């Protein structure tokens, strides 16, 4: 098992804030919008340096999505910022018609996704957003795993012409990816090569997958770990190549098991190379209040859950 260490921990939303500021410096067409959550989205640096390119919308997310769509007409590249719940479910029809169907170059940037929002509870812990967004034709869906990857993704999506959903979170998590990484949309990252089981993880579950890989190694199980940061378009080639070698797969995500990364992987396998698969995901339920760590344990989204799922799926080979 390849060794991954970290010296610092940060929230992925801060990676977004840093990336937004940097891409704002590089590209004068980048503009930002926020629905009364500037601090939570870490947009302060962008606003300080580019006040004329920032639009405070107020608590009116539907209007924000429409204004973002309109800003593209004239060549702007709008980044909208609010919580994942208010970035997707609340404004699904606005995104569907004014952005996705209209082919608008809007970057929908969504913080506080999933259970790790914590104490605010289920009203804010959206676990359906990946599914909602990946079903929209032409939408790119990205869920990076740490501060560095989120920052790199935030910068990279400005170069992609088309709507993007960028999902990140609130908790402080280890920074273990390369600060100078080149973020390539739709390209899987091979975290660790192995031969017994493929673990495919996205977002906060990638670090958990690494911890699981280390525990599995002590049990004599050689896990291949792949980071899928881009859920759509999916790197089918990387998935198929790995499963052809290992013969089974565990998918891990901070999302409902219905409609997330796991279902996307299952579809690829069913069509090309059916193989046993176990889901580490929320089992079709809402979340609740608690600390992020308590919630991830209760809902089975940590390294221990990945270890159990790997052991189970290997027996099904």
């Amino acid at each position: 098992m390849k060794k991954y260490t970290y010296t610092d921990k940060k929230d992925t939303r801060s990676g977004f804030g840093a990336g937004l500021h940097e891409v704002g410096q590089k590209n004068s067409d980048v503009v930002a919008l926020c629905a009364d959550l500037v601090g939570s989205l870490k947009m302060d640096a962008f606003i300080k340096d580019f006040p004329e390119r920032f639009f405070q919308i107020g608590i009116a997310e539907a209007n924000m999505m429409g204004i973002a769509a309109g800003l593209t007409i004239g060549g702007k590249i709008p980044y909208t910022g609010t919580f994942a719940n208010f970035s997707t479910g609340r404004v699904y029809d606005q995104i569907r018609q004014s952005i996705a169907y209209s082919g608008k170059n809007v970057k929908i940037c969504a913080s506080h996704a999933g259970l790790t929002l914590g104490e605010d509870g289920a009203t804010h812990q959206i676990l359906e957003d990946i599914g909602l967004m990946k079903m929209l034709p032409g939408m790119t869906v990205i869920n990076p795993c740490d501060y560095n990857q989120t920052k790199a993704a935030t910068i990279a999506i400005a170069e992609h012409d088309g709507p993007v959903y960028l999902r990140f979170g609130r908790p402080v998590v280890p920074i273990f990816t390369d600060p100078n990484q080149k973020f390539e949309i739709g390209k899987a990252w091979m975290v660790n090569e192995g031969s017994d089981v493929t673990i495919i993880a996205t977002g906060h579950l990638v670090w958990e997958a690494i911890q699981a890989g280390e525990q599995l190694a002590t049990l004599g199980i050689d896990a291949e770990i792949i980071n899928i940061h881009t859920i759509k378009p999916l790197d089918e080639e990387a998935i198929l190549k790995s499963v052809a070698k290992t013969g089974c797969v565990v998918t891990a995500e901070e999302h409902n098991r219905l409609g997330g990364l796991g279902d996307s992987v299952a579809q690829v396998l069913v069509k090309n190379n059916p193989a046993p698969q176990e889901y580490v995901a929320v089992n079709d339920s809402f979340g609740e209040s608690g600390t992020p760590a308590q919630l991830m344990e209760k809902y089975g989204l940590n390294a221990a859950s990945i270890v159990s799922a790997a052991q189970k799926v290997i027996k099904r080979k």
Partner: protein
Amino acid sequence: MSADIAKLENIAKQVRRDIVRMVHGCQSGHPGGSLGCADFFVALYFHQMEHNPKFNLDGIGEDIFFLSNGHISPVFYSTLARAGYFDKSELATFRKIDSRLQGHPTTHEHLPGIRVASGSLGQGLSVAIGASRAKKLNNDDKLVYVLMGDGELQEGQVWEAAMYAPHNKVDNLIATIDLNGQQIDGPTERVLSLGNLKAKWEAFGWDVLEAKGNDMAQLTETLAEAKSRTGKGKPVMILMHTEMGYGVDFMMGSHKWHGVAPNDEQLAAALVQLEETLGDY
């Protein structure tokens, strides 16, 4: 009547013929609101706006228009064709398979003149505000126009946008509401009353004008007045009183022709009332 007004009225007659024929041709679509807004579209595209039929989606350096109540697509398509955005023969494909003239307008088929999809109501004003802000960022002094239906004002997003534009001094925007008083289920007063719209929009901080939407002379004057009020710190609103189905006697005065196509006999009865002024498609 000036020669200009007569010329615009002639074009509006042909647009009304196109509307009725298009809706008849596919036996679906929305003739009522389209007929009511024919004068507005003609005044906008043949008199008011500085626009380029050699279409560029970004619309930099020209006035641009958004249709929020996308179901009145027949009047939009006919006007665009008659203004030279695409050949009028394409009007015959309206709502048919493989057409660029979808039931509701879309950018998806790359039809010149369309800058955003609309149909699901309440979204156009927000998009127009975004485009207005882009124009300001680009130091582009041309204007943004948007048309909404009156029933559409029952959507909450409209009022989010209504609040945003005055607060942010979006004063390069002229919005118009088609006040025909009808919606699918009946008169707006019965379905969900809109109340005093002039007072409402003024209370939100808009500069509000009123016009008779089926009087070409008054409409062109009001549009000119609206333009003169831009750049003064407030968004401009025109409350445009129209008659649904205007120009075809049996389609007027009721919500019944909101989304119903005429049969062969009704088409003939309508076309007798609408002179062919520019040549049918």
